[in-house]
């Protein structure tokens, strides 16, 4: 199968860089099996189904051997983002034949490995997937991160890289956040806690919130925790459990605020955010705060009082006309099967009495590039920053000031 004779012109197609796209070309017709594999990142050489009933067919010629070789080459070779090509000047290679006289591009990994291949166990991403590790990866340089993640010349890549470029004015790095459906809550809470110097006043008044919510409305009986298919599946009463989580939030906040330096505060936060029950409890507590806030705002709406605009949008959704349906159709699924919608980000900001400033990279070049959740308390509430490429996954940007301060400190010695 000669790809070059294929009628589809693959000029700007991501596959373009491959000169020997199919290593198996040496044995084109030999592997005649029918494999079916479950798409996940576990070892595919485990139990395999096969229509022909052939047990575990041999792994494809590309195998895993070349993977580790690539990894070694990459780690030993140039620094991240240091790969450059004599052609277009970017780290990627779209030269086709002209740039390399028919030889494969020397800066790229072997042709049967993808541009992104070989990264599986190296770099900051691996620390996110190991159990018990911090839910936030260490900070990496913003520019090289954007160049590494968004290679290519598609309109989308260019747009996203442009967005990261614009962020360079205030930020120098980014920390990847564990990417499950909790990431918006996780990123926000981490930012809030790591920047707090004093627990907020309202924190002292939320201890009774679980009982208040459960009281007349019986709302909390509808709460479900991750891992439970039905509300009330778990052994503990949700009200008591949430009370415990609220108390945990209060204690954690106070402990973090008491830290003597920003660095220690950060370390303390990293200790808390380890993917365990502690972190989960804090995030569930946040959800409870959001519910409380939604209830309060809904009451105000019913009394004809002034409420921020997002409330109308929140309760105008067919699926959440009231706080009860907001809980059953939206909030209790957050962290399980869904994340936060934008209108719910407003609610989160209100619940924490802070302005969440989000750089939305797929909106770069528009007025929605930088969005404030909420936008009506920018002067009086503390502000935290997040970055997202798609309004689904949120990461934490790292401010430039700390590195400048550290550099100045180093320079003055």
């Amino acid at each position, binding site marked *: 199968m000669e790809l070059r004779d294929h009628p*589809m012109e693959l000029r700007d197609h991501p596959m373009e860089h491959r000169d020997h796209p199919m290593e198996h070309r040496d044995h084109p017709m030999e592997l005649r099996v029918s494999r079916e594999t479950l798409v996940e990142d576990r070892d595919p050489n485990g139990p395999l189904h096969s229509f022909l009933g052939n047990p575990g067919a041999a792994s494809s010629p590309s195998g895993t051997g070349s993977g580790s070789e690539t990894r070694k080459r990459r780690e030993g070779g140039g620094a991240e983002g240091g790969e450059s090509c004599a052609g277009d000047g970017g780290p990627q290679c779209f030269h086709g034949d002209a740039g390399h006289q028919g030889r494969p591009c020397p800066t790229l990994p072997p042709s049967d490995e993808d541009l992104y291949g070989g990264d599986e166990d190296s770099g900051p991403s691996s620390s996110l997937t190991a159990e018990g590790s911090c839910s936030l990866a260490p900070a990496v340089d913003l520019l090289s991160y954007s160049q590494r993640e968004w290679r290519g010349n598609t309109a989308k890549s260019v747009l996203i890289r442009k967005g990261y470029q614009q962020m360079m004015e205030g930020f120098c790095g980014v920390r990847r956040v564990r990417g499950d459906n909790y990431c918006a809550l996780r990123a926000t809470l981490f930012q809030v806690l790591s920047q707090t110097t004093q627990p907020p006043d309202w924190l002292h008044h939320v201890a009774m919130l679980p009982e208040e919510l459960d009281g007349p409305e019986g709302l909390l009986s509808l709460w479900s925790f991750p891992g439970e298919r039905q509300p009330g599946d778990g052994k503990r009463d949700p009200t008591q459990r949430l009370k415990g989580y609220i108390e945990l939030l209060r204690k954690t906040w106070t402990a973090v605020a008491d830290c003597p330096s920003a660095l220690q505060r950060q370390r303390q936060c990293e200790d808390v955010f380890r993917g365990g029950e502690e972190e989960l409890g804090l995030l569930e507590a946040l959800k409870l705060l959001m519910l409380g806030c939604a209830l309060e705002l809904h009451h105000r709406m019913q009394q004809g009082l002034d409420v921020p605009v997002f409330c109308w949008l929140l309760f105008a959704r067919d699926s959440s006309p009231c706080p009860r349906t907001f809980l059953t159709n939206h909030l209790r699924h957050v962290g399980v099967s869904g994340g936060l919608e934008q209108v719910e980000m407003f609610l989160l900001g209100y619940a924490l009495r802070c302005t969440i400033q989000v750089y939305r990279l797929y909106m770069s070049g528009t007025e929605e590039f930088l969005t404030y959740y909420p936008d009506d308390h920018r002067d009086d509430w503390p502000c935290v920053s997040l970055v997202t490429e798609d309004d689904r996954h949120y990461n934490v940007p790292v401010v430039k000031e700390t590195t400048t301060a550290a550099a100045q400190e180093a320079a003055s010695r």
Partner: protein
Amino acid sequence: MSFIPGQPVTAVVQRIEIHKLREREHLILGFSIGGGIDQDPMQNPYSEDKTDKGIYVTKVTPGGPAEAAGLKMGDKIMQVNGWDMTMVTHDQARKRLTKKNEDVVRLLMTRKSLEEAVKCSMGGYANR
């Protein structure tokens, strides 16, 4: 969707976005694939053309991320996050879907019922 050398391949396509689920240290998508240029296309029950070596969805796990995104058994995957899936080996296909640093895969897929829906709505005009 059959491939005739010299003629452009056309298909009615749909975009589907699957948000992978993290289960401990694994990323779950919730579906199985069959097909690939190194596989036997005659065994594929979903393809119209029995020489089609594309990647097809053979199973969708109920309640999984793929089902939630609207993927169905029998769908043919044309692209994953911009990478072509019509001319790949089975393993390459699996790798493209399971990159650890990607939490979301955006698929370009097609299925027979889509073509038929379009044909019906165009009053059979599309049948050349």
